[in-house]
């Protein structure tokens, strides 16, 4: 069964460092998302991406964040200068149609720890 894959599974970084989280969405999916979950809190929307551009972003997704689809398979989330409060589990998700058409398929997540 096709699945969304994410790397790394866990990254530890120093505050102020740049981090890139990688995702390989399901191959025929067209819409891509990043969500995050701070420990003990709800899953929060960060950004959606379609047709090589951001379609929606949340207040959390400030100038320190960026997304890119550098080739036909990868979808990356970059945090330019990490802060302690960026420590969270980051989930990539994809869907073949827009979120209006059904469920999202999530990856297993990348745990980011900022020291």
């Amino acid at each position, binding site marked *: 069964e096709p699945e969304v894959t994410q790397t790394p599974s866990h990254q530890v970084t120093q505050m102020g460092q740049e981090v890139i989280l990688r995702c390989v969405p399901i191959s025929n999916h067209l819409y891509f998302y990043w969500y995050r979950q701070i420990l003990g809190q709800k*899953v929060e929307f960060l950004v959606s991406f379609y047709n090589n551009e951001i379609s*929606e972003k*949340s207040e959390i997704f400030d100038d320190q964040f960026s997304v890119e689809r550098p080739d036909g398979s990868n979808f990356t989330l970059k945090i330019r200068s990490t802060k302690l409060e960026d420590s969270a589990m980051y989930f990539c*998700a994809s869907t073949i149609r827009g*979120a*209006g058409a059904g*469920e999202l398929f*999530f990856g297993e997540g990348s*745990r980011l720890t900022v020291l």
Partner: protein
Amino acid sequence: DQQVKQNSPSLSVQEGRISILNCDYTNSMFDYFLWYKKYPAEGPTFLISISSIKDKNEDGRFTVFLNKSAKHLSLHIVPSQPGDSAVYFCAARRENEKLTFGTGTRLTIIP
């Protein structure tokens, strides 16, 4: 701004009994509701969904009920099995917009 609320952070149910997980929402424009299940160190997995034009959707042991007037939905699992122990997230969205998740309910099935 918690538009989707799960007021019970945890729930314990005896194996074989019915598990009922509840979710309330405030945005009357939501038109599609989903339940996701999440095991530790894994991503959320889609479980079942319901459109706002329906009041019930059933899939095997899982049934979701929607009460639009009360802005309330619930997930029934019957009979509950040990493998159902996980965190369950309610999610909702307006057409073609992002999913908004609740805070989750940790379900523990007691053998």
